[in-house]
């Protein structure tokens, strides 16, 4: 029953988020601040992880291709496919669920504990529109971060491949150009947009509706990370089934 109640409450929150919009002159500042907090501040960790995981994917692929009949350029091909299809949109989103998700839950949760949300409500402000809506809009720039993740992941793979002596630069470049299907980028960005919405709303839900004190803020952050990750994995499966198997 609690799960059903929470699911209902979540959709009501999403609906109420669009009610009684905040003045645009105020909202634009909130959106810009959230772009800075959620996207710009995450670029460092996204770049770091993408570059090195891209390298690891390449090394693992190269080490597992032991048959001399398999061409070396397949290392580049496998790296590109792994990064575009799964690593960048899904793996990075799980990491963002930890970084951005816990930031959103704890900041909104702290506002709940210290009665700042009550203060907004008493003033007649739609606190959901004021707090959650700018985060949803800011995270619509999330595909920008994922584009960087794709680029740096492949770059990291290339560096690991060439400097690790697994294949030549030419082979790797042939591999990353081989059988390129542009729809895979579209697929990746569709997933990214859906995950961005999940990343903005589920942590906001757990922060907004939390009850208790400082300890509960920590618990809410953990719960929000778990449920955001579960939803990302579940939606990843559904979207892959829908978009790639037809």
């Amino acid at each position, binding site marked *: 029953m609690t799960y059903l109640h929470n699911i209902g409450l979540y959709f009501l929150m999403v609906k109420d988020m669009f*009610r*009684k919009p*905040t*003045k645009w*002159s*105020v909202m634009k500042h909130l959106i810009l601040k959230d772009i800075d907090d959620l996207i710009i501040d995450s670029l460092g960790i996204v770049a770091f992880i993408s570059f090195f995981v891209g390298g690891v994917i390449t090394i693992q692929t190269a080490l597992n291709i032991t048959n001399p009949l398999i061409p070396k350029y397949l290392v580049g091909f496998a790296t590109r496919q792994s990064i575009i299809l799964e690593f960048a949109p899904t793996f990075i989103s799980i990491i963002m669920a930890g970084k951005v998700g816990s930031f959103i839950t704890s900041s909104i949760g*702290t506002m709940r504990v*210290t*009665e*700042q949300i*009550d*203060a907004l*409500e*008493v*003033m*007649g*402000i*739609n606190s959901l529109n004021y707090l959650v809506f700018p985060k949803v809009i800011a995270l619509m720039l999330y595909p920008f971060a994922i584009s960087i993740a794709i680029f740096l992941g492949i770059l990291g793979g290339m560096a690991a491949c060439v400097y690790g002596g697994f294949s030549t630069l030419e082979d790797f470049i042939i591999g990353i150009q081989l059988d390129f299907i542009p729809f895979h980028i579209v697929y990746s960005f569709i997933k990214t947009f859906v995950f961005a919405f999940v990343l903005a709303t589920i942590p906001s839900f757990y922060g907004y509706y939390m009850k208790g004190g400082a300890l509960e803020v920590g618990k809410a952050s953990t719960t929000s990370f778990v449920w955001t990750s579960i939803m990302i994995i579940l939606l990843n499966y559904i979207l892959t089934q829908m978009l790639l198997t037809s």
Partner: protein
Amino acid sequence: MIVVKDLYKSFNDTLIIKGISTTFDKGKTNLIIGASGSGKTVFLKCLLGLFAYEKGSISYDGKIYSNLTKNQKSDLRAEIGMVFQGSALFDSMTIAENVMFPLRMFTNMNKSEMEDRADVVLKRVNLADAHYKMPSEASGGMRKRVAIARAIVNNPKYLFCDEPNSGLDPKTAIIIDNLIQEITDEYNITTVINSHDMNSVMEIGEKIIFLIDGVKAWEGSKETIFKTDNEVVTNFVYSSNLMKKVRQMYIEERH
């Protein structure tokens, strides 16, 4: 004026507010007093519309709250100033930005007009030099005064204060009490204060309602609370030795 009629509120089948009826007059400081757990905060949050109630009605100058649409409720709330127990200042904003916040949200003032208005109210609460401080740099008393400034900046019709003296030293507590009283007189607003501070009761209690276990057990003023024979009220108000002596002296003076 706020009129409450036969208000009931429960949580998980436990009745917290049990049929309270009362009136909070315009231009007066109305106090809700009672022991911890007596339902004061729940009652205040029902008045503010933060808690939905099961039965009864609350009307603000004739407008019955439960009959209003969501947007009308939001518009009514824009006429309410609230001072929270923990001040509830926005951590990410300076003190001046906190005070200007209601103006940014509800008026079409330009920046200099908002700054001028913030100057006026910050001077009114004796915080003329605190504009650029962050809430984390302010003391408890300063935070309370900023909260009062934010509550009155948009000329509200109703001012609610949830234990405005909690955590303050006696001297600062009296300053805050007097400030609320002066602002109520000056702006002619309906002020409702939730308190269990007996100094506040004696200083500014123009109307007092006493709650016990969610029931209104007594209603009166700072003058009548000395004379009451209601044992429950006297046991609560004169629970400390000092207050017992004060009452004794008062009774002896009268005879």
